[in-house]
């Protein structure tokens, strides 16, 4: 009976391996303690839980090509990957996943995130920092009529046609918050040219002007190059500036940028800042080597930064050339502040955040340190699950599993008696082996995966059922016990293998096409079938062989 001994040896060997694979072990991982992330040793069962079970955030990012065309998307994403990894490392997340999927997207998985909005910003912010001198040549004032014309031609206008009026209409930029300079030109209004949308309508009603979109809504700011825009006209102006025909009018070497935050002027009115800047940045964030958040009693929260030697030299030269001028600090195409240059600035500078919180300053410092994304990215998918909901799912899934196992045990033992007990023993090994395979392959257990596992407990006994039914038939045909059992296993084999293979194939398709949670389902399905084939064909067989040996060829089998 060396054969049986070898079989038992293999089965128990696999049990030992499985127990070892599932034994809680000490791992070093990053954990969050008192708000800071530290490396620590944790003891846990090495089964990886998906985000939907442990709570956390999944982000899918793609290149945002609405602002600029990107030639080599794949390469740009590779470079972005490094930056995002570094940012997340500094942000402090236990076991983050940052990987490129296909050629055109990055997925980021952040377990245990408690402030998803902040995490999204840290991951997806381009953090492209530029310093640009504000325009002092009244470039905007000079092209206003042409901007108006271009906007009108593009179908975006506060009012009136742009034909034939250029010389007659010397539209000046009105003083701050706009005195009504339109009454005198009321005659140039052409009846029937309806304003194209409501925002423009309300602007026209509040300050009845016939001037174009730009001239009627833009007022001078506090220093050259800064302008103030009414909130009502903001949407239209943003739209107009996106039109190629409008942006073509902007003088070469100049650029228009918006301020970062709307300004609350009190009494429920808000304004936006618009800047005309020298297009060439005197320096960019690539020279930055350090950035730290600070709180200043007078200026509020700010970020102090340090440039490297070369950056510092350039910065000093450039700022010395532009003394008493204003330098806009532009982050991701938005002007954060535009302080006046009092004296040449060397390696150190600061960015004030206006009303921003200290946390905003911390995050800005973080993304500046990690560097800018080489291309702008946008979020195409967010899934966020709270940790409590995940734990709830685990509890419920485990309950369902326990009940399913109990029901299957009752059915199998109730129907097959002694053979049913053997099947249940095989089922117990099935559960153990499946979990061990999942742990061994480092598979991620998701909620659908858990469901697939519960389901597989019901389906896994099918192989045993097929064999038992076959044995019963052979016994009915009057064959001896030993022969019946042999024949039963032999005859049931083809059906078991065929059905197993088709299920594995559909599981493989599911894995190939599915994402995240569904992939977890496919993995448990496949692992379950492999374990079920083994337990039914090998383990149950061994049990029967032992039974035959113990009873020395009994005449009856309780099956």
């Amino acid at each position: 009976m060396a054969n049986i001994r070898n079989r038992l040896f293999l089965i128990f060997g696999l049990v030992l391996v499985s127990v070892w694979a599932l034994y809680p072990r000490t791992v070093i991982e990053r954990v969050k303690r008192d708000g800071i992330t530290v490396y620590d040793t944790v003891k846990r069962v090495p089964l990886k839980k998906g985000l939907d079970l442990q709570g956390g955030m999944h982000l899918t990012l793609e290149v945002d090509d609405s602002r600029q065309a990107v030639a080599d998307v794949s390469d740009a994403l590779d470079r972005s990957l490094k930056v995002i990894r570094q940012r997340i490392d500094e942000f402090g997340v236990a076991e983050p996943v940052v990987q490129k999927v296909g050629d055109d997207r990055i997925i980021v998985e952040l377990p245990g995130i408690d402030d998803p909005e902040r995490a999204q910003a840290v991951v997806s912010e381009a953090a492209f920092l530029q310093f640009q001198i504000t325009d002092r040549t009244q470039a905007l004032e000079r092209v206003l009529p042409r901007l108006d014309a271009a906007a009108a031609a593009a179908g975006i206008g506060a009012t009136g046609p742009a034909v034939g009026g250029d010389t007659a209409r010397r539209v000046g930029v009105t003083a701050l918050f706009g005195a009504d300079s339109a009454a005198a030109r009321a005659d140039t209004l052409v009846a029937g040219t309806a304003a194209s949308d409501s925002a423009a309508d309300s602007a026209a009603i509040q300050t009845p002007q016939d001037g174009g979109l730009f001239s009627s809504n833009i007022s001078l700011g506090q220093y050259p190059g800064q302008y103030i825009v009414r909130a009502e006209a903001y949407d239209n102006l943003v739209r107009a500036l996106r039109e190629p025909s409008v942006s073509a009018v902007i003088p070469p070497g100049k650029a228009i940028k918006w301020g970062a935050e709307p300004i609350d002027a009190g009494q429920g009115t808000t304004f936006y800042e618009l800047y005309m800047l020298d297009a060439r940045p005197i320096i960019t964030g690539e020279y930055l080597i350090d950035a730290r958040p600070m709180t200043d009693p007078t200026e509020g929260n700010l970020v102090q930064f340090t440039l490297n030697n070369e950056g510092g030299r350039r910065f000093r030269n450039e700022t010395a050339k532009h003394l008493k001028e204003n330098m806009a600090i532009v982050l991701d195409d938005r002007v954060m502040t535009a302080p006046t240059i009092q004296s040449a600035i060397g390696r150190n500078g600061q960015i004030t955040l206006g009303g921003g919180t200290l946390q905003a300053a911390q995050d800005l410092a973080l993304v500046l340190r990690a560097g800018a994304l080489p291309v702008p990215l946008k979020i195409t998918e967010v899934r966020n699950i709270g940790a409590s909901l995940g734990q709830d799912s685990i509890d419920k899934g485990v309950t369902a599993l326990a009940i399913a196992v109990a029901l299957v045990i009752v059915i199998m033992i109730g129907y097959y008696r002694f053979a049913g007990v053997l099947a249940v023993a095989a089922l117990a090994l099935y559960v153990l082996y499946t979990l061990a395979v999942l742990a061994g392959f480092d598979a991620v257990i998701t909620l659908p995966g858990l469901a697939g596992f519960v389901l597989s407990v019901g389906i896994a006994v099918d192989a045993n059922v097929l064999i038992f039914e076959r044995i019963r038939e052979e016994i009915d045909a009057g064959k001896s016990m030993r022969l019946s059992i042999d024949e039963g296993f032999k005859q049931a084999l083809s059906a078991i293998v065929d059905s197993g293979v088709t299920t594995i194939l559909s599981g493989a398709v599911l894995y190939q096409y599915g994402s995240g949670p569904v992939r977890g389902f496919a993995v448990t399905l496949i692992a379950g079938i492999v374990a079920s084939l083994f337990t039914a064909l090998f383990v149950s067989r061994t049990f029967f062989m032992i039974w035959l040996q113990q009873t020395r060829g009994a005449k009856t089998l309780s099956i």
Partner: protein
Amino acid sequence: MIRLFKGTSYDFVRHWRIAAGITAAFIALGLASFAFTGGPNYSIEFTGGTLMQLKFKSPPDVAAIRSTVESAGVAGAEITQYGEDTDYTVRAQDPAVVEEQAAGAEGVANRIQDALTQRFGADEVSVVRTEAVGPKVGAELRRGAVLALLITSLISLIYLAIRFDWRFGTAAVLSLGHDVLLTLAFIKLFDIEVSLTVVAAVLTVLGYSANDTIIIFDRTRENLRKFRKASLYDTLNRSINETLGRSVLTHATTLAATLALLFFAGQVLRPFSIVMAFGVVVAVFSSMYVATPLLLYIEHKYPRDSEDKNQRRSAEQTSGGSAAKTAGASKSRNPAAAR
């Protein structure tokens, strides 16, 4: 010792007309529903949009949630209670919302969250789950789901054609097609939300039903060799009867696991569990009443005379085939099936 269905000899195949009528009616009803009320209820994953699950400290006023969501500039959101009376979901699937999310999927969710926090206070309401999907991802997933169904069927066809005979393979795959239609009709008629998990359930149903068909066909193949004189019609009936005990047991344990999921695994998995439970019914039904008559029909059209001529007389072939066509009329019971 319990023995269910031992040595039975029911003439299952005889009732195929009634069965065909029932399944055709159900599918037709489903298709009509598709035609008149549009596609099924797709989840956020497929359409794009934003789904948020909210947990309140105390039962909130639904109208207040709605007005808050609307004040955040999100039109046409659907607000429903989810489980307990402190749990609600906000589902924004409006085309305008989806369009807005093309520029960045997170915007709408963040706006709703800010508005809710402002209205109810950060202590009172918390967002426990957010799903926000841009339109492009949704479109890709829809394509992928259809592709997965097709590839699964194709792979099954090839595998069955290799393992069995092409007639068995074709019958099995056509009955898989039937299973897909039946399950889709079920999903539509019972208004089950089609998520990725539900697609996974449909694929599992396909695999499970294919299993059942394979078990019967495997037995048929064996019986064709064993009882060479018997007609295919009788052999199929005999095979179904012989595998009946196995079918009852396996379906019972699978249904037990499925019901455990349905009642204890929580709301998120409910659509999956319902589809799976229906899938057990589909598997029983289609392997007995769809795959089997299909095989009879194919066998009748393309008899296996060349390879089996010396094994089975062609006269039996035709009698077997015609039995399928006139199954309703032929009351022939198989004496050999009753031991």
